């Protein structure tokens, strides 16, 4: 018990018996206790650490996650490992500055060493505010090209938003765990759950409030629910006569509105199971009421 990571790594990877995740799940009947943890880490590029703070904002759930499901093997902010190790899931925060070799190298290293690369947050997915960067500032005036990581490496999964929410990060972490260590049924559920977020990664590296115009309203798909307005972190969206009005001079290009819109994706096979999945996550986190 010397310091966090060494301790975590040396710990026998077993799951305490008090986690009743399998019994609680309606969507799966698997009884076999899941034995190992997955390995995951946080790679910090040109981001603000808000994404990581958001992960920490699972509060007690963070401990549960680290106790039972995830060995957190890399994270300059929280642990003392200096170079990107091999891991199952890499959460990459921030865009990548093309004008700094170190950053590009670290990102490539991350891709090489990880099974699943998650673009965590608007900056990693879409560039977010760094899309506005134009260089010209001391002490590195040549730092002007900040790209979403998907422009440099293949990315498996997107978690848009600024900051991404603690719950979305938790859901992805739990599903990634089920995908890699769960029973066949759990794997299937996890695959269906993660698919739309994987599709987002394929959709491209640009996002803006304009997506609501281009890909929802221009497609005659908007029905005026208002969820986009609720999800915008800079209050750039007003509902005017039942449809979103986007103030593009406020939008920071985080991608939350489009991904949150029920008309961007609505995978009914998963959404229909909302009760079961909510219970599953709660049970996994030890917060299930009963």
């Amino acid at each position, binding site marked *: *018990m010397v*310091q966090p990571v060494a301790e975590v790594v040396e710990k026998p990877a077993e799951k305490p018996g008090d986690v009743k995740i399998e019994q609680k799940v309606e969507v799966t009947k698997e009884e076999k206790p899941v034995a190992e943890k997955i390995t995951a880490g946080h790679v910090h590029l040109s981001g603000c650490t808000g994404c990581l703070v958001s992960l920490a904002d699972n509060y*007690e759930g963070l401990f549960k996650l680290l106790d039972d499901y995830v060995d957190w093997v890399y994270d300059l902010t929280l642990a*003392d490992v200096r170079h990107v190790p091999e891991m199952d899931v890499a959460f990459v925060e921030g865009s990548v500055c093309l004008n700094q070799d170190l950053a590009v190298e670290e990102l490539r290293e991350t891709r090489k060493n990880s099974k699943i690369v998650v673009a965590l947050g608007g900056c990693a997915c879409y560039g*977010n505010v760094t899309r506005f*960067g134009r260089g010209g*500032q001391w*002490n590195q005036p040549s730092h002007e090209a*900040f790209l979403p990581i998907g422009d440099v490496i293949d990315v498996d999964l997107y978690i848009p938003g600024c900051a991404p929410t603690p719950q979305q990060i938790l859901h992805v972490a739990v599903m990634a765990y089920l995908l890699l260590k769960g029973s066949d049924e759990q794997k299937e559920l996890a695959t269906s759950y993660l698919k739309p977020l994987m599709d987002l990664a394929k959709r491209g590296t640009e996002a803006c409030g304009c997506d609501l115009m281009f890909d929802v309203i221009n497609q005659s798909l908007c029905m005026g629910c208002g969820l986009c307005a609720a999800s915008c972190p800079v209050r750039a969206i007003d509902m005017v006569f039942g449809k979103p009005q986007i103030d593009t001079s406020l939008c*920071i290009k985080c991608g939350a509105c489009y991904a949150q819109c029920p008309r961007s994706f609505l995978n009914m096979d998963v959404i229909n199971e909302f009760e079961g999945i909510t219970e599953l996550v709660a049970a996994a986190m030890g917060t299930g009421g009963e």
Partner: protein
Amino acid sequence: MSKVVEISPTTRHEGHTKLVLKVNDEGIIERGDWLSLTPVRGIEKLAIGKSMHQVPKISSRVCGICPVAHTLAGIEAMEASICCEIPEDAYLLRVILQCANRLHSHALHNILTLPDMYLPGTDTHINPFTPEEPVRTVARRIQKLREIGQTVGEIAGGEPIHPSNPRVGGMYKNITPRAKAKLYDLAKEGAVLAREQMEFMITVLKDWENREAASVANGPEVAKTEKFGYHDQGYMAVDPLYGNSSLDVDQRWFPERWTEVRPWDWYMGEMEITMDDPNYPIGGTTPAGAMAWPQMEACTGVPLYDGVPVEVGPRARLSIFRNYDHKGAMGLQIARQMEYPDCLYSMIEAIDALDTSGSVLADEIPQGDGSLGWCANEAPRGTDVHLAKVKDGKVAWYSLLVPTTWNFPTCSRALEGAPWQLAEVIVRAYDPCVSCATHMLVVDESKKVVAQKLVQ
């Protein structure tokens, strides 16, 4: 003959930095450079021409740990430039938000600090993530304090990470009486926990200070030096809690006393790394033979106040406003803990004073004539000064003097005289939050010349 050792990247703080250290035969640092390697996103430059409403939303994204400081400093710099007074209740909501953010940030910093410390009475480093007691109880309390801070941030600020409620001219929305009651309950609960946490942390920090020797992570024990983490630079703070701006009658920050030098004039030149330690935890130091060039690599400039680097942050605030006097790395750490209770007491005061039916948006929001306005916000890590010129609703000029940038050169000085193996402990005492320190600008040529003279 002194040797050069490099620790890169440093860990357990936010962002990318490294340490380039010249050490003597005993391994004591003769000169240390601590520098940011985080790419410069160039917020000051990208702001030009954008609307005064959007720019503070962007500057919030400078840092996700103290986004409230950057949001408020940005907004209030704009308000100062356009001469817009905000309603009292908007101000109170901002104060509540400020307290909430400091609470969460100090608590988060405890997690980063503890692994260097020992369980008092033992030689065991504290791993904040161990499920074992007594650590788990402390870790839970830290998360509870953060939860309280962040939840208050949600209610008063719309979001705790990058608050959405503050805007130029005040706030988008006042809160309801129900929300006010909830805030009050949260603050009351937090007050008790904060005091407990403060006491625990001070015990642990004093325990460290009284040890003869210490180690970083699972590295070897190294004898400590007497004045560990001392420096002779001054302090700068504008308020014990909130801030000060050019709209205030009683101004406590003076742009004319601020100058800035580029890293070229401050950091060390190119040199070869001549010493390494593959066993330094975890991953070893940079192999000997590699080159380091702090002048060229540093991503931040060096701001000066009255011609010298100054320390900002908890100790600076307590020294200036409360006569606190405890030097060294642990003196700074202890000062931070001493700010815990006030986060809650000041929050409660502001909640009490808040009128939930009051207007929170100025009747008129001028568009600005290009005058200079500034706001100095006391962020968790120290004075965060934003300066802006707004003309016709657009930002014509913007500059940020963020806390960690003030602290980089001061902390570099504080490394002198310490064993190099413990250098990271000093760095972490300053609670570096490096992504903020990525946008510095030399404003005006004449000032730069003055600055260079003063340094020589």
